[in-house]
């Protein structure tokens, strides 16, 4: 069966499709999240060095991975919006930014909480944590730019350019921060030196990562539906939506 993908490039046809997909992704995220949490909290053995406190990596690492992955996805949709001038691509990019920022924030908070019992400090200028902080600033910059521009088309394209410039710079920033950190290694040990991984721990992290990915897809689809309704509100098909009927 060949699907006419271009049909779904219009917000009017994508809206109901997204609505049908959301429950599946949400359920998948919930199921895998419970399984992953079970593995992480109950099944995985106590770590030799760090005790029970290490278990927070089952949230920290998936959140950090998602934060970086979502930025690339956002830049990808931005590139599509610039190249093909499609509204829906820009709306997808607009929907991803807040979730990406949230993932970054979770990664920073959990990383900070992990540092306290393990290394005695809430914040050490570790290479990865510092890069996460800068990534948070990049996300907030995209969100701030979108809020600052009134015209939606100009905002779409400006944010697309900004996220592409950011995406090119993220590896450079990470490399420079790593360089800076290794030079000043001094007394502090890397905060994210994960314990030697038992296979069950890796499995747990993988399952939690997939759960985070499914959660992100579900939330982004929900948000893009809201964005579609807001931005297309002059169209005829919006007025006929059952959820908007009084």
């Amino acid at each position, binding site marked *: 069966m060949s699907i006419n993908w271009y049909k779904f490039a219009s917000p009017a046809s994508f809206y109901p499709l997204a609505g049908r997909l959301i429950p599946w992704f949400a359920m998948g995220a919930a199921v895998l999240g419970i399984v992953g949490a079970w593995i992480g909290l109950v099944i995985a053995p106590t770590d030799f060095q760090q005790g029970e406190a290490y278990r927070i990596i089952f949230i920290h690492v998936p959140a950090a991975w998602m934060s970086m992955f979502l930025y690339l996805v956002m830049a990808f949709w931005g590139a599509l919006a610039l190249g093909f001038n499609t509204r829906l691509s820009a709306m997808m990019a607009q929907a991803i930014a807040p979730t990406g920022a949230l993932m970054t924030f979770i990664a920073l908070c959990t990383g900070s909480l992990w540092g306290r019992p393990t290394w005695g400090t809430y914040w050490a200028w570790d290479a990865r944590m510092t890069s996460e902080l800068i990534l948070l600033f990049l996300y907030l910059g995209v969100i701030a730019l979108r809020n600052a521009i*009134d*015209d*939606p088309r100009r905002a779409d394209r400006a944010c697309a350019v900004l996220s592409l410039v950011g995406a090119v710079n993220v590896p450079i920033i990470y490399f420079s921060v790593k360089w800076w950190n290794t030079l000043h290694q001094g007394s502090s040990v890397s905060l994210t030196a994960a314990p030697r991984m038992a296979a069950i721990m890796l499995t747990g992290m993988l399952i939690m990562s997939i759960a985070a990915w499914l959660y992100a897809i579900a939330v982004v689809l929900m948000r893009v539906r809201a964005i579609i309704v807001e931005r297309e*509100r*002059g169209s005829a098909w919006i007025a006929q939506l059952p959820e908007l009927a009084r």
Partner: protein
Amino acid sequence: MIATAPAADRDPSPWRLDGELPRLTSRKEAGGRTAIIALFSKRKAVVPQTTMRPCMDVPIDHESTRPMAMLEAQDISARRGLTRLFAGLSFTVQAGEALVITGANGTGKTTLLRMLAGLSAPASGTISWRGQPLQPFDPTLRSALAFAGHLPALKDELTAEENLSSLVALSEGDADPERVRAALDEVALGRQRHLPARVLSQGQRRRIGLARLALLNRMLWLLDEPMTSLDAAGAALLARLIGEHVGHGGIAVAATHTAIDLADARVRTLALS
């Protein structure tokens, strides 16, 4: 609206074209705003076979009686935010014609002009130049265009002469100082040419823009509210420049809510509502 003296009252112009101008039909868009295209003047004339343009210095070859559509808009629409400014708008402008776009504030005159200049793309429909559909910032159009925007693009710190040279150099690569001075003299700014633009009045700043139009060797003039701040002499100068430009085969599109007295020129009006 546009005042033109009846044909019978004037001497026959040397630049006249065969045949009647085609009457354009109006299009209505259901539920949208209506664009009314009114053909304001049409006249018959005879055209010589070859003509020399005094300032262009090139021979012109007239081959048939139907003028070629140089600038064409097909079914274009524009939105500002969620409101639709106009829709289903179609018109053509041929060489040697002036198109005056009228309408109240907020009807989209400036938006339409900026679309014709290639600064933004229409929400739907196509704009074509010389038969080729245009993308925004199309290089061919940029080489053929003189755009006079709402603001005269003058730098306060530069003198009138420096401003004019700079703008002409931006469009043509370099500016011959003699021609720049001559152009300033022609717009009655000869004595003010060493003054910084900061101390010039609004009308004088506008005149520098007129001098720029006269200097540039461009076919398509897009003028946004060209009558702003001009006194009677300035308005007469503007009308003369447009009339000469159009008479020599150029195209002038002006968005204005003030009447421009374009005597002896082929003028059409597009009223946005």
